[in-house]
């Protein structure tokens, strides 16, 4: 059984994933240009989350002007390699600048609690399996995602999930959540 598990683990190639991810850094690198502001930081994301999102882009379950065409160039093996590579990296660091809106941060934490976000995203918002890490994600991207779920532009996966999670929240609430999560280490 140990041999079999080993075979499974080695099926994806993080080194190949690194090379394949190289062009993506234009938007997804920590110090990326301003056009990358609404692109997420992907280091340390769960392997299966990366893979599912690429599959959603590829099947047009999730539409994005940049990612939909890019995802169509990826094979299953590419997707597995990229997932394995990104999951192997240390997660990003939270925004260090002085928090100019501590009220938003506090409201965000309260909303996260009241809406049970950690049931899926786990305590510390580190993510797991097909559920993304949220801690220290870019604020602009978090807000865009939450708004897309709210407006119906982005749908969840198979289970009832994000569209319903954001349903009771106001736009101020979404801003508070994004502000709070981006500052969470």
């Amino acid at each position: 059984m140990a041999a079999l598990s080993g075979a499974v683990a080695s099926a994806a190639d993080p080194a190949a994933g690194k090379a394949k991810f190289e062009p993506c850094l234009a938007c997804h690198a920590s110090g990326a240009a301003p056009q990358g502001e609404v692109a997420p930081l992907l280091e340390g994301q769960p392997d299966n989350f990366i893979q599912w999102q690429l599959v959603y882009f590829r099947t047009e379950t999730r539409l994005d002007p940049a990612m939909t065409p890019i995802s169509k160039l990826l094979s299953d093996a590419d997707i597995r390699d990229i997932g394995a590579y990104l999951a192997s990296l240390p997660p990003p660091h939270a925004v260090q600048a002085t928090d100019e809106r501590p009220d938003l941060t506090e409201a965000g934490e309260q909303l996260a609690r009241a809406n049970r976000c950690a049931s899926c995203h786990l305590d510390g918002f580190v993510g797991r399996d097909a559920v993304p890490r949220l801690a220290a994600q870019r604020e602009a991207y978090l807000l865009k995602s939450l708004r897309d779920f709210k407006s119906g532009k982005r749908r969840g996966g198979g289970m009832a999930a994000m569209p319903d999670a954001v349903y009771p929240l106001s736009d101020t609430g979404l801003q508070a959540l994004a502000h709070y999560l981006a500052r969470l280490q």
Partner: protein
Amino acid sequence: MSSLPKSWASGAALALAAAALVASSAFAQGLKSYDSTKKEFWEHPPADWFLGDETQAQKGLAPKAPPATGVPIEEIQATLKNIKLPKGFHISLWASGIPSARQMAWGDKGTLFVGAFGVGNVYAVTGPEGSKQVKVVLKGLQMPTGVAFRGGALYVADIDKILKWDNAEANVDNLGEGKVVYGDMPSYPAHGWKYLVFDKHGWLYVPLGPPCNECLPPTSVSQIRRVNPENGNAEIVALGVRNSVGGDVDPRTGDYWFSENARDWLADNGPSDKLNHITRMGQHFGYPYCHQGNLPDPKYAMGHKCSEFTPPVLNLGAHVAPLGMKFYTGKQFPAAYQNNIFLAEHGSWNRHQYQGARIVRIIVDAKGHQAKQEVFASGWIKGAQDFHGRPADVIVAKDGSLLVADDWAGAIYQISYKK
């Protein structure tokens, strides 16, 4: 949703205690107690709606997402080598590249249609044995797990409606728009995915699950209906049903039998999932009041006794997750298998040591008496919680072999028998 649950104060205290211990993880969520009795909850269930009144020991148990791209062929082949079957039976890979594969239905000309869960696709598998081609024929649907085929038409369940595509096999390359043949179903996403079975008269059996783990459900669900897609007529044939995503018509009697997933969050060892048999219109199978035929619900028994309800034909085991099933009507397997039930168990999530993820054989007479089960195909779970595959449906092929859809691997297997 907007008001804090009553247990929040103690949850916050726990969170503070956890924060004091682990400085790097300041946020720790308390345990949840659910009020799933409101329409607001059914229409917009919280993302963790499948949770119940969890205990500390159960915190963290959650359904697993399958690999997004399925399992690579070499790994599937390695797993199949370790699948245990009775003597004379053999399992092989029949088709792959079918992520989230759920219910299967044969077209008249040999096309296999396959529904799917997360990816929202319906697939068609065509071509000669050994070189099967997989096409995505529908996409963008909401959990189209249930598919059926009759009179040249493909039927697909899309949560709150059943759609029909005429002449589907000739049009697999462009199915076009489907026609809604039945739309009187709620849109609750939780337990809203379905399984479709025609009987020989053209009634289409459709299960409707409750939008919660355990609740007094809306009156429009927790039931099995049968629908006449020709004119949209429908009738309720069974009540008190939790999440059923599998069933078949007994070739001996025409009766509908179905598998049923029992509630979660009571215990690792209970309640048992069930196999049921409808013998009379409108029978009540116990949910939410009574589980496994003899266990009143601790919160929702509401004064009812289990003796008021129709007991299961067979208790299958706790958290085995029975899904698709078929009576065996082929000629390839030994005669003793005739009219036995093959049932695909998807395997656990709400249990510390997973079980299920196998095919069971159920031997039972036409009245539902003298039922017994034995494991037919197993070996997809390694260790406590590691899936290498999850059987989701079975179907008998023309040559009498048994096909198995696996929504974890994104593949279909063939089980054959040779003396």
